[in-house]
Every structure is written in C-alpha cells, then in structure tokens.
C-alpha cells in the first residue's frame, strides 16, 4: 500500500476537486455514538464496525462511514440545496479476510437536492467518475428502486409485500420467502400443525418474557390469513426472477426491462426513471454503452441505498474492493430526519486504492 502521507495528499486533491464542484467541507468525529448506527443496521454492523465503550458515554463506534453523520448534520442545520465533501479515515472490522484493510481513507461527495433527483444521480456519478481520472475501471450500476417497485406491484397481500421488501437486502431470505409465498416450498409441518390445532396453547407452557400471549395470538392470526391467501402466481415469480437476472450494458438492460415491464406494469415508472437517468448521464458525457447494469447490484451492501447504486472496480483485479461506490439513500434521510426528508445521493472514493492502481499500471 502507498504510504499514508501520499494517500492523504491524494485525498486532499480529490476533496479539492469536489469543492470545485460546489461542495462545502464537512468534518465529523472519529468516535460516533453507536446507538444510531445500531438502530439503523442492527446486529450486522457489529460484524463490520469496531465498537468500543466507556462508563460515561456508553457504546461508541469508530466511524464505518461518513454518510450517517453527514445526513444527521444536514437534517439538523443544513440549508437546501446542499453539496458536501469530506476526507478522512473510516474503520471496518475484517475478521475473515486479512488482506482487506480495516482502516482506510474515504473522500466523499454528497448531494441533497429536491429539484431534480435524476439529474443529481447523474451529477454524482459523473463527478466521481471524473475524479477517478485515467484509472482502468469497470463501472457497475443498479437500481434498488426497480426491485422495490416490482415487490410493491405483486398481486398478493400487503403483509407479504412488506416482508419481501424488508428482505430485498437479504437475498437468501428473500428467496426463501418467495418460495414459501408462491407454494414452491411446502408449508413446514410444525406450521401446519399449529394452524390445524383447536387450541394452539394446549401445551400449557408458562408465559415468560416480554413477548406477550397477545403478540403470539396476533401472529397466529397473521399466519392464518397468510395460509388463506392465494399463492403468488408462477408467472409473477418467473417475471421477478427474470428481472433479478438482468445483467447487461445499460442500453440493453433498459430494453430488456421495458420488455419485462409490459408484463409487469408496476415497474413502468421506475424503468422510465432509469431511462431518464441514462439520458442525464449521456448529457454529462458519460459513455452509457460502456456501463454495466445489474438488477441485483447493491442488494448485499448495507441497506441504506434505495435507488440508483453504482461502483467502480479495477479491471482484472477481483481481489480488490471497489475503488468507488455510491448511491441514493432517500429513506435514510427520512429515518434520521425525524419527520423531515430530502432526496439525497452520494459517493465515496478510496484514494489509497486509486494510488495503488496508478502505481501498478
């Protein structure tokens, strides 16, 4: 890895580029209150971030990224529209891969703008891409919004749609739920027995713990309603599978998605947005024919991205993490804004990786 001073200089250069695009500098502490992050991401964040504590302030986290503090600061006292940039270390626990760094620099560019979200998507992508300069990188893009629209449009109960939507970011459980709801996987014996029982509580186990009998009863009712609901049709599951497998250059993917949208009108608007985004990217001089689009891209990342997502990868270096990543996170502003929200999109570059690639080429 390049020495720290050079990485810092590279980070300063990137940050100056982002400032020249109109972004104001943002600073935040390395130690962040753990509670907000834990509440947002749940237990998974502990596997990815360093948590420490003291008797006075309780649990603190070495910042795993800048996005959450930027959003908090903007929601608390930011003027609109706003563009921010920052440069600093982030910390990621790496327990399974000793070659991945657990501390590295990130330089970010974030846009909070209500006016034209599609154009903001294109702006962030193009600003990040031009900051990457001549490095030989492959760009992958995706759009979580299309998946969310597809789930919302399924001909099934709201409860099922809600569960599927919640697990868009957990592909394995998403698949298990879809198999269950479509009747592809059989109803487990224990559930059958539960639903058939005259008195499910006949076992007489004493009530213990915070989860009350009323909550158990409510879930049994929900299971009964679910058992009575018609399965999600084979046709819809096939369409969803086709959608999840779309993986082509952006213009071809758009054509393919338009075909799917004929049978799946719920994604029509989201596909239109993709088309407008492609135009906006073209207008900014991006060679869209060279961009990859993967419908499933971004599903295994931290779950704050809910629209456009992108990443830049070193060609021929599958061992390296993404040199730059980004995406839209409107829902995050809603969660952290306590009643307020604003469309937001941003991206980060890893100057250390960029230098490493330059040195290798």
């Amino acid at each position, binding site marked *: 890895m390049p020495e720290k001073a050079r990485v810092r200089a590279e980070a300063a250069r990137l940050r100056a580029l982002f400032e020249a695009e109109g972004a104001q500098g943002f600073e935040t502490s390395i130690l962040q209150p753990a509670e907000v992050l834990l509440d947002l991401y749940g237990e998974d964040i*502990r596997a990815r971030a360093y948590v420490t504590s003291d008797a006075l302030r309780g649990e603190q986290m070495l910042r795993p990224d800048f996005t959450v503090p930027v959003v908090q600061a903007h929601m608390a006292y930011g003027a609109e529209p706003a563009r921010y940039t920052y440069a600093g270390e982030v910390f990621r626990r790496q327990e399974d891969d000793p070659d991945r760094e657990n501390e590295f620099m990130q330089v970010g560019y974030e846009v909070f703008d209500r006016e034209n979200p599609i154009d903001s998507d294109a702006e962030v992508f193009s600003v990040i891409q031009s900051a990457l300069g001549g490095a030989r990188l492959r760009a992958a893009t995706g759009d979580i919004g299309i998946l969310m629209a597809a789930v919302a449009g399924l001909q099934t109960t709201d409860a099922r749609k809600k569960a599927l939507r919640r697990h868009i970011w957990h592909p394995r*459980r998403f698949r298990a739920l879809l198999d269950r709801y479509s009747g592809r996987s059989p109803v*487990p014996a224990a559930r059958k027995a539960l639903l058939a029982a005259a008195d499910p509580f006949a076992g007489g186990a004493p009530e213990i713990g915070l989860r009350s009998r009323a909550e158990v009863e409510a879930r049994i009712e929900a299971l009964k309603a679910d058992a009575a609901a018609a399965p999600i049709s084979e046709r819809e599951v096939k369409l969803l599978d086709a959608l999840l497998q779309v993986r082509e250059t952006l213009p071809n993917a758009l054509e393919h998605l338009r075909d799917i949208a004929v049978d799946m009108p719920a994604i029509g608007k989201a596909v239109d947005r993709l088309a407008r985004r492609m135009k906006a990217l073209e207008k900014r001089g991006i060679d869209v024919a060279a961009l990859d689009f993967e419908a499933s891209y971004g599903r295994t990342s931290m779950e704050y991205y809910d629209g456009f997502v992108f990443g830049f990868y070193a060609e021929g270096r599958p061992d390296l993490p993404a040199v730059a990543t980004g995406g839209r996170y409107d829902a995050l502003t809603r969660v952290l804004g306590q009643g307020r929200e604003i469309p937001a999109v941003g991206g980060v570059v890893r100057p250390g990786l960029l230098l490493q690639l330059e040195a290798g080429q």
Partner: protein
Amino acid sequence: MSVKLGVPSKGRLMEKTFEWFGARGVTLSRTGSDREYAGRVEGVEGVELVLLSAGEIPRELAAGRIHLGVTGTDLVREKLGQWDQVVEPLAELGFGHADLIIAVPACWVDVDTLDDLDAAATAFRERHGFRMRVATKYHRLVREFLRDHGVADYQLVDSQGATEGTVKNETAEAVADITSTGDTLRANHLKILSDGLVLKSQATLFRSRVAPMDAGERDTIKQLCRILRVD
C-alpha cells in the same frame, strides 16, 4: 526446547482429557498441591504440560505460545478469525459434546423455525420499539449464523452465565447457548428452534499452525501423534 501441550486446568474436561491420553499410553497428571497449576507428562519425551482455562487455549494456540491444545470446537470458532488457518484439528476426543443452539420461550407456539423468528422479531420491534434481544456469549458464531440465514431486527446482548434465565428475567427474548441434554432449557421453559443448530461441538485436540518449531519439536509432535494414533 519442549513441545507445549495446553490442557483445561480443572473439572470434568481436565479429567476426561487425562483419561483420553492415559488410554493411549500418555499419562498426564497434576503435580504439587491441588491449587498449583503444574503438571507432568509421562510416556513421551519432550512434552510439557500447560494447564490453562479452556477458554484461553484458543488464544494461546493462535499466539503460538503452545503447540498443542485441548479445547472445544465452539471456543476455537468463536474466538479465532479464520480459525482453520491458525489451528489444525488433530483428533475429536469424544467427550464434551455440546450443541450451540437458538432457543425461544416454549410459550411462543407460533415460532418453530428461523423464518418464524425473523417474522416475530419484526413484529416485536414494531410493538416494543427496540430489536428483539438474543442473549449469548457466542457473539461471532451467532451473528454469522443469523446473518447467513437472513434474520434481521434482532440484537445480541452479552450473557456470560445463567443465559437460560435471561428470558424470565426479561433481559432477553431468546437465547443462543450451549446445551448437551436440553434439560436446563426445558427447566427454564425454553425450546430449541427446529433449524436452530448453530454448531456441534466437542473436545478436540488442536495443533497450532503458527507456533515456531525446531526439528526436535517437530519430531516430538510426530512421535506423540504416533503414540496417540492420530495424524
């Protein structure tokens, strides 16, 4: 220099380990007073006995301060990242059997699988305003297991003992703990999820892959393995 063999320093685990080695012609024994943690090895030359808490043996193997060690698979996998690159299991010793499992109150008649647990956790969070708490001391193993199975909306709370009591005491809603017969779970009105087996564990003889060794120590380990009939 001698080969250092780490063995649990007290209780049934120590006795069973002594028995296992003894049955194969290597006599391990404690020396001095009952309180002194010193030991002796007979039946093979050049092996030194190091008596340690079973929980510390994984760390000592990983640091290369002992060459061989007897401890549970559960502890090795919980405490060591990329455990299989740091230690090599030489032999399962056939005792200290324990399953790391996920259990919920038996009165949760609606919850039998991880799928149910996930759904219950979501509803719990909406109702109570915080994530369902799972009490455990096996944070890494349980987190990995639940993540791989796509269970969200839970949090782990640390419990270093009497874990089965946390539900009744309302400091947790579910537990992930070691069980051998399930008696303690039943006595505390808990039941195991039908697909809630995280790991099957037993006492195992491990070799450190990182402990520095000279030619003599290498020979000693070879000879010991021959006597113990493991390789």
